[in-house]
C-alpha cells in the first residue's frame, strides 16, 4: 500500500508539486487572518514572517555550513586512518 502510493506520487510529480505550492500560498494567505494572542516581538505581527524565516533559515543553514565545510572542515574519509596504516600500525 505504501509502495503503491509512493509509486503513484512519483509518477504524478507535477500534481504533487502543484498541491505543495498551493499549500504554501494558502498558508501565507491564511496567516493574514490568524489572531495574535500573545505577540512576543515584532515578527509576530507580520503576516508570513515565519514563512520567510523558515525559508531563509533553511538557505542560511545550508549555505553557511557548506561554506564552513569546504573552507575549513571537510577531509577525506580516511583522514584519521591513514597515518596509522602508513606506519604499519593499522591493526588492533
Amino acid at each position, binding site marked *: 500500500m505504501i509502495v503503491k502510493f509512493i509509486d503513484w506520487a512519483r509518477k504524478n510529480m507535477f500534481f504533487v508539486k502543484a498541491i505543495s505550492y498551493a499549500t504554501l500560498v494558502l*498558508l501565507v494567505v491564511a496567516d493574514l487572518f490568524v489572531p495574535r494572542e500573545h505577540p512576543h516581538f515584532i515578527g509576530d505581527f507580520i503576516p508570513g514572517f515565519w*514563512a520567510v*524565516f*523558515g525559508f531563509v533559515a533553511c538557505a542560511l*543553514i*545550508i549555505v553557511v*555550513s557548506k561554506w564552513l565545510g569546504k573552507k575549513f572542515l571537510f*577531509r577525506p574519509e580516511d583522514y584519521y586512518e591513514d597515518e*596509522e596504516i602508513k606506519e604499519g600500525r593499522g591493526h588492533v
Partner: protein
Amino acid sequence: MSSGFFVHPSLFFFAGMIILPFLRDLHRKVFMVALPVAALVTVINIDPGIYGTIKTSSLDLIAGRADKMSLMFAHVFTLMALLGTIYGMHLRDNWQILAAWGYVGSALGCIFAGDYLTLFLFWEGLMVTSVCLVFLRREKEALRAGYRYFLVHTAGGLALLAGIFLLYHNTGSIAFGPLPASSASWPAYLIMAGFLLNAAVPPLHAWLPDAYGSATVVGSVFMCAYTTKTAVYALARAFPGFEILIVLGVIMSLYGVVYAVLENDARRLLSYHIISQVGYMVTGVGIGTAMSLNGTCAHAYAHILYKALLFMGVGAVLEVTGRSKFSELGGLWRYMPYTFIFTLVGGLSISAFPGFSGFVSKSMVVAGAWQSHLIWAAIGLTLASAGTFLHTGLKVPYFIWFWKERPPFDPPKKEAPVNMQIAMGLTAFFCIFIGLRPQALYSMLPFNAEYHPYTLYHVMESWQILLFTMLGFFLLIKKLSPEPLIGLDIDWFYRKGGGLFLKFCRGGLARLENGLIMNIHQTLFLPLLKIISSFSAWNDQKVVDGIVDGSAVSTMALSNKLSTAMQSGVLYRYLAAMLSAVAVIVGITIWMVK
C-alpha cells in the same frame, strides 16, 4: 521519609543480567519483555518519597529519592528499555542485551540518587556498560572509538569526583540538590563540567558522534537515550537558573545543526542532532523557570522516544544493507517501506510537526524563552528547529529511501527483522500518542505551569516554518547531495593530537635524544668527563697513592729500626730491661702505699 513500598527499579535490570544467560528460546524472549514491563509497572507505582537511606557517621547516602522529576525520567527510561530490548530481541548475542541492561540499571541509579556519591557510582557504571555497546560492534574502528569514548568519559568522571570532594570539603554535605548560582565556585564548576561532558555540550561533545556512529545497531539505540538525558536530569537538579547554560544551550542547538549538514553517515548525523536537541533541554535548565524546566523534562521524555525511533530506523537499514552512509544508500523505498514510514514518524516528531511528540515538548522550552524575554534565545532555537527538519525530517529519509531510482547495491530481499518492526511501530505509536494527547505527558511534569501547545497561532507558525524549510530543501537539494567526506570536529585535537604527541615522542623527542643530547654529550660532557677522570687518575696515582705508599714506607722503616733496637737478641740487655722494670714497679708501689 515515606512509608510507601519501594523496590529500586535498577535491581530489575541488574538481576536480569544474572538470569538472562540461563534462559533459552521462548523463555528468553518472554523474559526479555517481562523484565522491562515489571520495572515499568514498578516505577508507575512508586509513591514519592525518600527511600534506601544509608547513614554513616559523616555522610547520608540516599539510593532512592523518588519525586515527580525522578519518576518522570524513570518512567521514560524503563519504557525505553522495553522498546530497545524488543528491538534487540533477534540478537543471538546475549552480551549486547546484558550491557544494555547494565546501562539502563546504571541510568536509573543516577536518576534515583539523592547524593553525589551514589550518583557518581552509577555515573561510572553508565560509562563502563555503554562502552561495551561500542566494543561489541567488534570492528577495528569501533574498538578505537570505544577507547576514545572511555578516556573522554574517564576525564569527565574525574572532574565530577574532584568537584564532589571539594564540595564535601567546603560544605560538609554531598546532598544532590541545587547548587546556588550566586555563590558558585570551583566545586560547582567541576561538577558542572562533568555533567556538561555527558550532556555533550561543545566543546565537550565530540565523543558522541564518534561513539554512537560506531556502536552496534542495538547499542546506539540504547545509547542515544540514556547518557545525555541522565546528564540533563543532573543539570536540572543541580544547576537550574545558571545563565551560562542558556548561552551554551543555544550554541549547541545550532552547532549540531551545522555539523549535521556536513555529515555523510546517517547515524553520525542523528548524533549531531542529539547535541542540537539536548541544547533545547540545557537552555531550559539555564532559564530555570517552572515553564522552562517543565519544557526540559517534557522534551527529554519525547526526545528519548523519537531519537530512539530514528536510530532504530537507520539501524534497521544498517542491519539489512550493511550501510549507513548516504553516499552509499538511496532508492530503498520499494524494499524497506515500513522502516521508511517509522523513520519518517521519528523525523516529523523531532521536527515538531503539529500532531507529533516534538511539537508539544520542544515548544515548551521555546515558550519558556519567550516568556523570560530572551528573544535571541527563542530565535536561535527556532532557527535550529528549521535545521532539524531540514536534516532529520528531510535529508535522512530522502537520501536513504529516494534520491536514486534503485539502490546502488543488490537490493535487500526482505524488510528489517519482525522484532525491529514491532519495536519501531510501538515507538512510533508513542510519538504520535504524545503528540495528539499531550496531557498524558504533561500530567507527569514536576512543576505547575499552564501550557497549551495547540493554539491557532502556534500551529500556523510551525506549519509556515516547516513547509518553507521544505521548499528551501528541494530548491537547494543539489547543494546537499552526499559527499564521501568527514567534517573535522573537536575530536581532531585528541585524535590528531594524540598521534602528533606519539609522533613527537617518536620523531621529535627521539631526534632530540639522538641528535642534540647525544651531540652535547659527545662534544661537551665526554671531554669534560675525560678531563675530570684524568685529573682524578693523576690525583689517585700521585696524591692518594703517594700518601698511602709513603706512609707505608715510613712505617716499615720505623718498625725496622724499632725491632732492631728492641729485639737485639743479646740476653743481658733483656735481663737489664726486666730488672729495671721490676725496680720501677716496686718503687711505685712503695710510694703509693705510703
